[in-house]
């Protein structure tokens, strides 16, 4: 396989954000995963015949096509152009949004264990602060402090990588 290693590294770089991107189309995590994987299976199969210089646009376009193809097959009458990006208004481009989300996820994973656990329980599992406090047998005040701590650390990390900030800066003025 000629460009096996470049496909492998493209997979490692883009896989999480590609899934998030696919979720916006098909609205199902497991299905999104399958569709992204199918794109890579296809890519590996024809890797000997094609040459890709920039993987990023190619992969997002392929995932988009894969999702649309899936939606057509399963609900021919649905309005397929309708991507859901209502959750974060700052991003005009769903690709950038997906990448940013995947990036934040990576940062969350690097938080100190206790902070990470509490932050995940709140954001990913949707528990209320009182529920987290009961569950971990700590005070509600500690839960709130830990969430605050997580936000501080994440913001600090975000500042470190200037290119991400650059992507973001244009959206920051929207609110004020």
């Amino acid at each position: 396989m000629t460009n096996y290693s470049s496909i492998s590294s493209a997979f490692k770089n883009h896989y999480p954000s590609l899934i998030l991107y696919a979720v916006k189309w098909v609205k199902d995590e497991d299905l999104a995963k399958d569709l992204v994987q199918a794109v890579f299976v296809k890519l590996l199969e024809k890797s000997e015949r094609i040459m890709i210089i920039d993987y990023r646009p190619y992969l997002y376009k392929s995932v988009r096509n894969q999702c649309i193809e899936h939606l057509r097959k399963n609900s021919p009458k649905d309005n397929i152009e309708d991507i859901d990006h209502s959750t974060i208004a700052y991003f005009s481009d769903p690709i950038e949004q997906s990448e940013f989300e995947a990036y934040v996820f990576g940062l969350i994973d690097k938080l100190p264990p206790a902070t990470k656990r509490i932050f995940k329980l709140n954001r990913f599992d949707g528990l209320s602060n009182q529920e987290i406090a009961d569950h971990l047998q700590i005070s509600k005040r500690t839960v709130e402090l830990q969430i605050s701590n997580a936000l501080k650390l994440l913001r600090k990390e975000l500042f470190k990588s200037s290119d991400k900030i650059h992507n973001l800066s244009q959206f920051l003025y929207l609110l004020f």
Partner: protein
Amino acid sequence: MDNQYQLIKHYQNKLSENEKYKVEGWLKESTNNQEEYEYCVIIWEAAQQSKPLQKLNIEHDWNLILSKANRKPKRLNKIIKYGLQIAAVFLIIFGAYWFSNNTIYKSEYQYVQNEWRNKVKTITLVDGSTVSLNYKAGLYYPKRFNGHERKIKLEGNAFFNVARNKSKPFRVETPISMVQVLGTSFNVDATNNKTIVTVKSGKVQVTNKIDDTSNVKLLPNEQGIQDRNGIYKKHISTQNYIGWKTGKYSFENESLLEVITLLEKRFHFSFLFLDNDLKTRELTAEFNGENLKDIIEIIQLSCQVRINLESNKLTISKNE
């Protein structure tokens, strides 16, 4: 801001008027503060979006993709593809049939085993048939008999008294044989990789489950035996085969080996002949519910042997 969570609460509109006023005052202080607020909100929102990535295993998924890409043949001939589809349909039908046949034992059947060494456990089935289980014998039986036959499964030694029902044959499965009857009483001994069926009344058919063709048809006082050598028939003249249940034995010039083997079914001991010649010594006696000690006494006297009983072990030796 010391407590960034206050910003999120403000964003979610969850603050009291007083707190809200504080945060908004802080925001007005500088654009830096406004930026801080923005970042927190963006992180907050993005973190919720990351939910599907919680259990992502990149290494594992990459290997999965590799195996899928390698496994897929380049191009399948259309005819082969079509053939495979048909095969798949048959496979599913066959699989469903097999599954439904096999789940009977798991879902509707229950299992009972006799764990009492000195008692016979008798089960009455839903059709009125009774099964008497010897020590360690196990029975799989259903709460209801569905379908066109009454099917149960036996491990070990048991006596059956089957209620007559011509339209629903009664079937006993042992590990190696299939015993089929209409209505009768008979004994099935399925221990030590053998099946011995002895008929008291009625008609019984024993089929070899392994080759599925060889069988014997048995009438009262006939015995069908399946062992390593296959399946065959024997005439019997006594009711000793159900002695384990009745306690009644009638021996007439019976070999000592046969006597001990039959008594073992009732008293559950292990035995050892110290001298092989002793196995062919003959015994003529009648027993009717005696205990093992008394029976041993009688055998010792009439056969001129010594029998030692210790911790459930019989040792038979010459009488010096």
